[in-house]
C-alpha cells in the first residue's frame, strides 16, 4: 500500500469517483490549477464540462450545485477557504439544507461542499475560521471531518455517493504534511462510525480532525506518567457516533474534548451536553474542552500557535481531571 499525503488521497478519491460515475462533476474557483493539488490532473482527464472553473462567486457556486443536483447530477463544489462560505450561507443553509424537508421529502440532493478549515499557516483571521459548529446546527447537512489520508479517501467517496448535502471539511495544514497508507483500490467508510485512534482506560480524549494528531502526542506524554488515554476521532460529526464515545467515557469516567474552532458554542459544547446526558452517573469529573479561545486568529505566528490547542494544553487538562 502506498504512503501518500492527504492531498494525494483526496485527489485519488476524486479521480476514482469521476471515473466511476459520469454524473459527478467538480466546480470551484481556480480548480484547474489547484493550489494544494487536490484537483490535480482532473481537468486534463475529464475536460471543461466536468471540472468547471468559476468566477469568484461563492453564492453562485453554492446555488448552482443545488440546481444541478435537482436535474440529476452529483456535484462536488470547492470553496477554497471555509470562511469564504460566509458569502454563500443562504444557498447552503436556507436552500440546500432545507429543501428536502420543505418539499415534504421529495428532493434528492447529492451535493458535496468541499472546503478547508483550520489555522497554522499565518493566514490571519479571515482565512482560518473553523465553522463545523455552524453547519452542525443546521438540520439537513452531514458533516465530515477526516483526519488521516486513508479516511479522507474513503469518506470523500462515501460523501460523493451519499444522496444528501455533505459538508466535507479538510484541514489545510494536513494537505502536504500528513501522510499515511492508502490503498489504490475502491473502498468507502460509513458515516457515523468513530475511529478509536488509541485505546486507553484512564481518560477519553475526543478530538476533531487535526487535533487527533495533538491528542495522540498528548497521549504519549501522558503514558509516560502512567495515564492511559483513549483517543477517539468521530470522523463525521453529523451523523455522530455517540455510542462509541459514551461507551469509552463509561469506562474511563473522564473526558477531554479537543477541537480547533472557537470554544464558545463550538461542537465541543454539543459533545459535553450529550456525554453528560448519557453518561452522567459514570463521570468522575466534568468534561473539559480544549479549543481555540474566543478571539479571531491572530496573524503573528507565535500568537497563532497559542490560539490553537497544543499537546501541552491537553496534557494539562487531563492532569487537571485526574487530581
Amino acid at each position, binding site marked *: 500500500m502506498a504512503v501518500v499525503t492527504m492531498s494525494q488521497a483526496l485527489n485519488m478519491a476524486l479521480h476514482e469517483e469521476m471515473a466511476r460515475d459520469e454524473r459527478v*462533476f467538480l*466546480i470551484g474557483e481556480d480548480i484547474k490549477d489547484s493550489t494544494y493539488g487536490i484537483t490535480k490532473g482532473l481537468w486534463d482527464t475529464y475536460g471543461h*464540462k*466536468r471540472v*468547471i472553473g*468559476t*468566477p469568484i*462567486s*461563492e*453564492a*453562485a*457556486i*453554492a*446555488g*448552482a*450545485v*443545488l*440546481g*444541478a*443536483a*435537482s*436535474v*440529476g*447530477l452529483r456535484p462536488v463544489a470547492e470553496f477554497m477557504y471555509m470562511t469564504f462560505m460566509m458569502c454563500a450561507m*443562504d*444557498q447552503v443553509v*436556507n*436552500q440546500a439544507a432545507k*429543501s*428536502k*424537508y*420543505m*418539499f*415534504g*421529502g*421529495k*428532493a*434528492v*440532493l447529492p451535493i458535496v461542499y468541499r472546503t478547508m478549515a483550520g489555522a497554522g499557516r499565518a493566514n490571519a483571521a479571515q482565512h482560518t475560521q473553523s465553522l463545523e459548529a455552524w453547519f452542525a446546527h443546521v*438540520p*439537513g447537512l*452531514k458533516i465530515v471531518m477526516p483526519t488521516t489520508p486513508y479516511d479522507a479517501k474513503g469518506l470523500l467517496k462515501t460523501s460523493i455517493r*451519499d*444522496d*444528501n448535502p455533505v459538508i466535507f471539511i479538510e484541514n489545510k495544514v494536513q494537505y502536504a504534511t500528513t501522510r499515511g497508507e492508502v490503498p489504490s483500490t475502491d473502498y468507502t467508510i*460509513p*458515516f*457515523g462510525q468513530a475511529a478509536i485512534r488509541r485505546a486507553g482506560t484512564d481518560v477519553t480524549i475526543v478530538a476533531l480532525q487535526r487535533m487527533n494528531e495533538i491528542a495522540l502526542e498528548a497521549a504519549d506524554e501522558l503514558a509516560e506518567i502512567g495515564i492511559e488515554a483513549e483517543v477517539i476521532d468521530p470522523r463525521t460529526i*453529523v*451523523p455522530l457516533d455517540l455510542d462509541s464515545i459514551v461507551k469509552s467515557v463509561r469506562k474511563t469516567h473522564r473526558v477531554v474534548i479537543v477541537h480547533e474552532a472557537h470554544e464558545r458554542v463550538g461542537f465541543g459544547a454539543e459533545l459535553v451536553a450529550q456525554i453528560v446526558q448519557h453518561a452522567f452517573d459514570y463521570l468522575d469529573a466534568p468534561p473539559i474542552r480544549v479549543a481555540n479561545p474566543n478571539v479571531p486568529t491572530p496573524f503573528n505566528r507565535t500568537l497563532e500557535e497559542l490560539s490553537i490547542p497544543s499537546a501541552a494544553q491537553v496534557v494539562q487538562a487531563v492532569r487537571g481531571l485526574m487530581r
Partner: protein
Amino acid sequence: MATIVSPIEPAIAPSLGTAPGALDRHDLTDRDLIDVYRTMLRIRRFEERVKDLFLEARLYGSVHLYIGEEAVATAACKAIGDGDVISSTHRGHGHCIAMGLETGPMMAELMGKVTGYNHGKGGSMHIASLDHGMLGANGIVGAGIPISTGAALGFWIQERPNVALCFFGDGAANQGAFHEGINFAAGLKLPVVFICENNGYAQFQSVKQDLPIEHVATRAISYGIPGVIVQGEDVLDVYGAVKEAVRRARAGDGPTLIEAKTYRFEGHFLGDPEPYRTRAEVAAARATRDPLKLFGAQLQELGVATAEDLQAIHVQIDDEMERAIEFGESSPEPPASVLLTDIFTGADEHGRAS
C-alpha cells in the same frame, strides 16, 4: 486617455399600453390560445379564492398573490416543454399553475395538509414539484437565480436540449445572487432565461426608489447577453420574447434577460395595508392593464373564441376551484410523527445511514 463608457442608460422607450400593429399569435394554435386563456384564468381564480379563504381564516401563512401578473408565468411556461424546469419566488402560485401543477394539491399545501405538494411542510412560499419541473417557490428574494443557473449547468454538462426559466422580481435585481447567478450563466452560455417580473414594487418600496436606472433589462449589458423588455400584461408579447430566448438557449447561444413590465393588483402579502400607493393607481392598472381582459378581447379579435366560449371556461374554472378547495379542506392534517422525517434521503431523521 480616459474613455468614458457611458454616463447614462441607453435610451429605450418600451411602448406600454397595447402593442401597435396586428396581433402576432406566433406559433400558437387555436387550442393553444384557449389553453393559455384557461391557465391565466385558473391563476386568477385560484388567487381570488385564496384571498377569500385567507380572510375567512380557512387557510393561513405568508401568502403573496399573483393577480395582475398572470400573463407572464402563463406565456413563459407555454414557451417551454418536457424536461424543462423553472425556479420561482415567494409569489409562486402563478408559476406553479403555469407549469401544470394541480390546484387541488396546491390548495392543500396552502392549508398545510398532507395531500399538498409538500405534504404541508412548505406552504405557499415553498411549493415545489420536481415531477413538473418546478424547482420551488422560494422565501428568499433572489435565491432562485443561482439555482436555475445550476439546473442549466446540469443540462449543459449532460448535453440535454433543455432550458431553465428563472422568475424573479424587480426587487431581486438588487441582490448579490442576481449578479452572481446571471454572470456565471452568461460566462458559460448556459441554457437559462431570466425573467424579471417588474411589478413596480419590492414589498413596500417602489422600484423607482430602489433601482437607480429605468429598466432592469439594461443590466443585461453587464453580462453580454440580450436584454428584452416586454409588456407583462400582454401574453402574446411575453410569449414571443420567451420563445425566442428559449430558442437561443437551446441553440447554445446562452441566457437572455427579459423584463416584463407588470403590476400587482393586490397588496404585497395578504394583510398588506398598502400605505405606499394610492387606490387610484391600483384602479387605473386594473382598468387598463388587466391581462385577462386584454387577452379575452384579443381572442375575440382573432376569432378564436366568442364571449360565450370564454364564459364556458369561466364556469369550468369556477367549478375546478370549488373542487380544489373541497380537496384541500377534506384532506387530513399531517400526523405528528412526520415532524421528524424527510431530513435525509436514505437515512433516519438523525442522519445515521439507514
